[in-house]
Each structure stands twice: as structure tokens, then as C-alpha cells.
């Protein structure tokens, strides 16, 4: 365990394993699932599964889950959970529908109001979770009930219709009146080119500094894989009507949040706090403030998702968004989030969401009943987390006898070997 002095230089194969297998393996898994449905669909129904229409529908039908999954991933990485997002989404959607239809505000103000209300809800929940240290499970369980009730209250238990540009957010293809069909293809090409450019530049800098992160083969495979995915996606959407408006929004969110997660101090602190809160605290990470903002962000994204759901259904309904929290959580875990926090990527959450979306779509086409669909999705979630647990157990080397690690005696000699301790740092500035 702790006696490993150094590892042998990575061979090509182990180098391949070195690169983020979890994240890129997900892309491959998604592709395989799509292929599986293609084969099944052709053999059973004699029709193609992988069609531009079907794939566009996957995006349209799952967009709000994907938006929630982005926020949920940060929550889970930070070591928490949010059960309230379905209700918060419904409440924010209701408020924005009221702003639009009852108050006659323009669509963009209705959107902003929803996001602002969501953020405020995040402030409320984040306060209890981060500063009062009530477990997120409890706070958001309460939130789930509270905001469902408030949704029914503000809607008078009735459905409120929406109309106009607002609804186009969820189903339109034109941005400010421009057709995006050709632009989808162009954006795909430019995106792929920029990706290659950044990768080559980054790789060159790493090689120059003598700190290449992965083997040449692993790196090339990764670049080729990603470029292929971008190109394929761009072509597929181009072949239909271009990337829908919500697709552009999602794309922007994925890029923005990946940047925040990887390249900002805040993002790194989200990970550090979730990975080992005590070590992060002693390294000067303001763990409480970080958790607080993670929940504010989750609220704001739930607000945005609320707008999308409302726009898609062309109405705000008291029962909107039920079970969405579970789908968002499942997306994150399928996408590689660790149950204990600290691990997970934004792109992983989105791919996890897409896996669920594709499976739903595929099974519907194959006329698998709702009952069976639910069973299968449940098993997929379990399998994904099982993989995480197994992976962790393997890297921890099997584990010690349970009893030996309970507090008992000074245990100095044992700690010499393991470096454990029974002192805990207090919550930062318990007196504040």
C-alpha cells in the first residue's frame, strides 16, 4: 500500500489506461448503446434507430435533465445531494409563466426571473447546508416538499399556458430569426479545429516542460475520438434542421461549466472540498462558502431548466418536474460521479444524461413498456455505481479489518504504518 516507491514507466497500454478512462469510456459506452439499439431496431422493427430526427429528439426531450445534471454534478462532486431540483424547477417555471402570461413581461425577463428565483432558493438551501451544517439530504428533502407546495399555491393548482418566443426556447431551431442549419456544420468544423489546436498547443507545452500526462498513443486516440464525436454530432444535427436552440444553450453551458470546473479557483475548490473536506479546510479552502455557492448555482440552473420545461410543455403545471431530481442524480452517477464526492466531470454528467435519454428513446421505439424501462434504467444506475465502488476498493487494496480501524488506544505503531489519526479539525472557525 504505502510502500510503493515508484511505478514503472507507463507502457503504451497502461498509458492508454492512464487517460481518463472514465470520461472517455463513457463516450464509447454511449456509442455502443446507440449501436445496440440500431441493431435491435433494424432487426426487430426493420427501421433505423440512429437517425437525425431521433437524435435531435433525444436532445429536445432530455435538455432539462441535462441542465439539471450539470448543476447536480457539482453538488455531488462537492459531497452533497439535491433532492429538491424537481420541485424548484416546477416553482421557477410557474413563476416565469406567471410573469409572462399574467404580468405580460417580455420573454427574456420571464427567463431571468426564473433563474433569479432559483438562485434565491439556492441561497436558502445553501445557507442551511453550508453554514448550519444540516445534511443536504434533509434540507433538500424539505425543499422538495416546500417548493412543490408553493408551486401548487402560486398556480392555484391549475395549468398556466405560455406562448410566443418563450416557447421557442425549448423546441425552436432559429436563433434571432436566423436559420442555424448550415451554421451547425460550420460550428462543428470550427469546434473540432479549435479542439485540435488547443490540444496540440497544450501537448507541445507539456512535452517541452517534460511532463506529458499520457502516452502519445493515448493522446492521439483521445483527440481522434473527440474530433470524431464532434464531427458526427455536427453532421447528424445538420442533416435534420440544425442544432435546436436548446442545443446551443446546452453547448454553451457545457463549455462554461467545464471551464469553471477545471480552470477556476472556485471549481478546483469544489473538487477539493468534496474529495477531502478536512484536508481542503486545512489548505485554506473556504469549504463552507464553496458549498453555499454550489447550491446557489444549482438553484439557478433549476430555474433555467424550469423555463425549458415550461416552454416545452407550453404551460406551467403544478406537477411539472416530478422525479427529475432522480434522473439528474442518476445521470451524474452514470456519468462517473463518485458516491463519496470529489470525482466527476461536467461532460460525464451530460453523457450520463444522454445514456439515459438514448435508452429511453430506444426502448420506446422498441415498444418496451414503461415498467420494463424503469427496471432497466434502475439496473444501469446500480451497475454504474457498482463500478465506482469496485474501482475504489481495488485502488484501496482490499481494506483492513473493520475493527482495527475503530478508535482504540493510541495506536501509534499502527498509525506509523498508516498515518491515521483520531484528531479532527473543527469546522473552520467554529466561533464565527
Amino acid at each position, binding site marked *: 500500500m*504505502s*510502500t*510503493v*516507491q515508484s*511505478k514503472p514507466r507507463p507502457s503504451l497500454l497502461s498509458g492508454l489506461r*492512464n487517460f481518463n478512462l472514465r470520461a472517455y469510456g463513457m463516450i464509447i459506452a454511449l456509442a455502443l448503446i446507440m449501436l445496440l439499439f440500431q441493431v435491435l431496431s433494424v432487426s426487430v422493427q426493420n427501421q433505423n434507430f440512429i437517425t437525425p430526427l431521433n437524435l435531435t429528439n433525444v436532445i429536445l426531450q432530455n435538455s432539462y435533465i441535462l441542465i439539471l445534471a450539470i448543476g447536480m454534478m457539482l453538488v455531488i462532486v462537492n459531497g452533497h445531494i439535491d433532492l429538491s431540483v424537481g420541485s424548484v424547477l416546477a416553482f421557477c417555471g410557474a413563476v416565469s409563466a406567471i410573469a409572462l402570461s399574467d404580468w405580460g413581461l417580455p420573454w427574456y425577463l420571464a427567463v431571468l426571473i426564473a433563474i433569479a428565483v432559483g438562485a434565491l432558493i439556492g441561497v436558502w438551501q445553501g445557507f442551511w447546508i453550508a453554514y448550519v451544517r444540516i445534511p443536504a439530504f434533509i434540507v433538500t428533502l424539505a425543499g422538495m416538499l416546500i417548493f412543490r407546495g408553493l408551486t401548487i399555491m402560486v398556480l392555484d393548482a391549475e395549468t398556466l399556458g405560455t406562448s410566443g418566443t418563450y416557447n421557442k426556447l425549448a423546441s425552436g431551431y432559429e436563433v434571432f430569426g436566423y436559420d442555424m442549419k448550415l451554421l451547425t456544420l460550420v460550428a462543428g468544423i470550427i469546434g473540432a479545429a479549435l479542439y485540435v489546436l488547443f490540444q496540440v498547443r*497544450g501537448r507541445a507545452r*507539456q512535452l517541452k*516542460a*517534460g*511532463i*506529458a*500526462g*499520457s502516452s502519445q498513443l493515448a493522446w492521439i486516440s483521445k483527440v481522434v475520438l473527440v474530433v470524431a464525436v464532434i464531427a458526427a454530432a455536427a453532421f447528424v444535427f445538420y442533416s435534420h434542421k440544425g442544432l435546436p436552440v436548446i442545443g446551443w444553450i446546452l453547448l454553451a453551458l457545457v463549455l462554461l461549466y467545464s471551464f469553471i470546473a*477545471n*480552470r*477556476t*479557483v*472556485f471549481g*478546483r*475548490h469544489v*473538487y*477539493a472540498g468534496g*474529495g*477531502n473536506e478536512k*484536508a*481542503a*479546510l*486545512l*489548505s*485554506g*479552502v473556504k469549504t463552507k462558502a464553496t458549498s453555499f455557492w454550489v447550491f446557489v448555482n444549482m438553484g439557478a440552473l433549476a430555474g433555467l431548466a424550469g423555463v425549458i420545461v415550461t416552454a416545452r410543455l407550453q404551460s406551467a403545471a403544478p406537477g411539472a418536474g416530478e422525479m427529475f431530481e432522480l434522473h439528474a442524480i442518476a445521470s451524474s452517477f452514470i456519468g462517473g460521479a463518485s458516491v463519496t464526492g*470529489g470525482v466527476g466531470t461536467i461532460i460525464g454528467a451530460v453523457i450520463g444524461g444522454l445514456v439515459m435519454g438514448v435508452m429511453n428513446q430506444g426502448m420506446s421505439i422498441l415498444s418496451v413498456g414503461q415498467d420494463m424501462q424503469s427496471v432497466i434504467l434502475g439496473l444501469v444506475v446500480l451497475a454504474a455505481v457498482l463500478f465506482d465502488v469496485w474501482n475504489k476498493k481495488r*485502488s484501496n487494496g482490499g481494506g483492513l*479489518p473493520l*475493527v*482495527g480501524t*475503530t*478508535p*482504540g*488506544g*493510541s*495506536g*501509534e*505503531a*499502527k*498509525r*506509523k*504504518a*498508516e*498515518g*491515521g*489519526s*483520531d*484528531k479532527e479539525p*473543527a469546522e*473552520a*472557525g*467554529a*466561533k464565527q
Partner: protein
Amino acid sequence: MSEDILRMRGITKRFPGVLALSGVDMRVERATIHALVGENGAGKSTLMKVLSGVYAHGDFEGEIELEGKPARFRSIRDSEASGVVIIHQELALVGELSIAENIFLGNERKSGGFISWDKTNAAASRLMKQVGLHDNPQTLVEKIGVGKQQLVEIAKALSKNVKLLILDEPTAALNDTDSENLLDLLRALRDEGVTSIIISHKLGEVLSVADNITVLRDGQTIETLSTEGDKVTQDRLIKSMVGRDLEHLYPPHEPKIGATFFEVRDWTVHHPDQRERVIVNNAALNVARGEIVGLAGLMGAGRTEFAMSVFGRSWGTDISGTVTLDGKPLRLRTVPDAIGAGLAYATEDRKNFGLHLEYDLRENFTLPGLYKLSKYGVVDQHRINSVSERLRTEFGVKAPSVYSLAGNLSGGNQQKVVLGKWVFTEPELLILDEPTRGIDVGAKYEIYELIHKLVDQGKGVLMISSELPELLGMCDRIYAMSAGHITGQVDRENATQEELMRLMTLETASGGEELRQ
């Protein structure tokens, strides 16, 4: 009288990379109180865990004989069935349950398959009377003091028909009266035929209560003394406990000591959960530039608590006192405050508090200093990489690359990463808590060299260590701490292990008044 209840022969226990016990022999006579003493890390607790089945038979080498019969315990349950009961320093009681429920936890009094509360409470009352506990058996355990909780533990042991009672630091958390009560109880139990093994750092107490004393050092039995026959004194015990020579384990170093720049005064810290407990009591110390100052003390003396409370109040409540750096008082309410003020604290517990084991070296090296590698909150990925690579080379971390996970490194290399991450924040004062714990000799030497390099740059180092030779070999000045008090300081020339051990074991009624030169 001299019948042995217990014989342990050739007990050897290995942990990955460390030999914790090496051929330990121990004999305990029936109906005696047998003390087990030794420095931190000597292997006392490990030996008791071997005895009580925490480490299953087969996990260690050697033989255990209980009442003349070979004992092969696979678990605590096995050992308890044979009448061996261990009471850990951290009591294993459930605060929300009553005294009676705790006594019979896992051993419930039943009638017809269901718990009989009449039986439970009646039996509990009997046992409580035996240990001198005169409370209602239905009182919740969290409502009674630590002293009484100890008695509940003993009552629980008696309920299991204990023959051999093992107590690990039973009086560490007790005040004088409670301690005395407990020791009296042990004497009474001895007269009723119960044998006790007691691990204690309080040598005065050991000499007053024990019939025999076994000294462990570096995982080996040094000797077993009888308090009747042999003339045993505290000094005699201390010599036996520390008894090794300073070898050439420490790199040569010419200290360049400048002016005193870091001072802590009147520092008092309370326990975060039990606010009435004073953990650090009116402590004061100072460090000069270029100086390595040691802080010696036994387990529970309050050294780590002192350091962490200074480091942005990361431990304890109701903290009072002043910290000054270059004469300026510091406001250290949070860890970022402390880092900003030029303090660094490298924890004794690398794996849990010091590192993110699942993250690579880059994340670990740059976490506390991330603000230096970012602009407008956006981190410069390339500088993170290059800084990490520089630190990796500078600190001689043996890892394939900066992408290696911290959890895959050996203890010594992990410690270098911890040092690196703090040095990158450019602190004025580094508090190093057990910087060489669990590290092999070669890596220790490298860590020592790194520490020398730091003080040569004019920084100050406050070094907490449980290994006295290390403090003597490295430090220019050493403070000793006992039960929250700083009981004295010795400079390099006058420092001996015996003198430090004397200060470290000073019973604290007089503590604090003892010299402050």
C-alpha cells in the same frame, strides 16, 4: 500467587513497511495489576490489540496462552468469551442509551427471546454497585461525566465475566479525584481476583497502582519490573523507556539563528465538543528566524491542538491569546487568514488531513497556493503543471510524474508533497506536526535536510514530534508540554531525553510555574 494468567511469547506484528512488534514476550500474574509503559509508538496498543483479538490469530506471529491454554482469538467476541475485555481510550459507549442499556449492549438480558427491562436494570444495578456507581441505571450515558463513563465501561466488562481487564490510558481524560477513584476500583477488583493490564503515560500513577511493570521500546520487550522487589523509580522507568543512543541519523547543520519573530502568548483552547475541557492552558512560546523549535509531549498533551488552534482556529473553541509575527499582532480567524499571514501547518495525519489521495500531485502541490497561480479566479493550467514539476524535482518526490496520484506514493514521498505544498505558499513560520511519522530512515534524512534548507532561508520552524531523539537531533530549542501546559523549555546544550521526559510527565498541578527561562 505467582500463577500466570497470561503468557505471550514471541509476538511479532507487521504493518506494511513497519515492524510494529518484534518478538515481544510478556507474562502477567493472576490477580495483579500489570502496567505496560513505553514511548509513543513503542507498540503498546498494538500488543493489546493482538491480545484482545482485534488482530485475528494468524495476522501476527507468536503464541498467546491464557490460563495455561493456548488462545487463538479470531475476533473481539472470541476474546471476550474467554474473559479478556479491552477498554479503549475512546470509550465505546452510546451516549443516547441508558447506563443499563450500555452495560448489556450486544449481550442483552432476555426472557423468552425479548429484552427484559426488569432483568436488565436489576443486573445493571448490581454491577454498578460493584464499581461504585450510584446513579439510576436508566440515566442516559451522555448525562454523566467521563469519570463515571469509565466506570460504566468497567461494569460492562464485569457483565462479561471478565478475568483479564485491559485499560488503555484510562485516566487520560479524568481529573485527579476521578483518577484516584478508578485506581481504587482496580485495586478492589484485584482483590476479588480480576487481573488488569493498564497502559498509561502517567508514571506516578503507574508506580502507585501496578504490581508489575513491563517496558516496551521500539516494538520489543525491554524488561519487566516488580514494584515490590525491584526498586523502581520514575527516573529508572524513563531511562528504560527511552534508552537508546543518538546515532548519525541527522544531517550536520550550522544554525544561523536570528531575532525572535513569532510569538504566542496566553494561548488557551477548549475542546470543541466538551467546552468546559481546557485542552491548551495558557501556553506561550516563541520562535526566532532560522531556528528549529521543538514541541515535545506525550499523547494527549495538546501539541497538535495547540498548533491547529493557532493555524486559523482549525481546532477547538473559546480560543484566547495573542499571536504576533515581527511584533505585529495577527488576526487568525480562518485558515486563509493564517496562510495569508505567513503561517503553514503540515498536519501529523497526512492521509486524512494533509493530502487528497485520489488526486494527482499537481492538485496537491497547488491547493493552498492556488491563488498565486490564478488571475481573476481563473487558474493557469500550464503554470500549475510547471510549478508542480519544479516542486516535484526540488523536493525529490519519487513519482513517475506530476500526474501520479498522491495515494500511490510511499509515506516519505507523501510527506515531501505536503512540505512542498506548504513551501509554495512562502510561509514565514512552518509548523511541522510529526513530519517523519511512518517514514523510513532514508526518507527521514531527506526530510531533515529539507527542514534545514527552510531555516537557512530565514524561516522559522516549529516541530512537533513524539520521537525524542528526533527532537534532540534536530531542534535548537525544545518546549515540553504536559496536559495542556507548557511545562518548560530546554536548549540544545542542556537537552536530554530524561529531562524532557520529566517535563512531559510533570503532573500539572504545579505545571506552568516550572521554569520559564
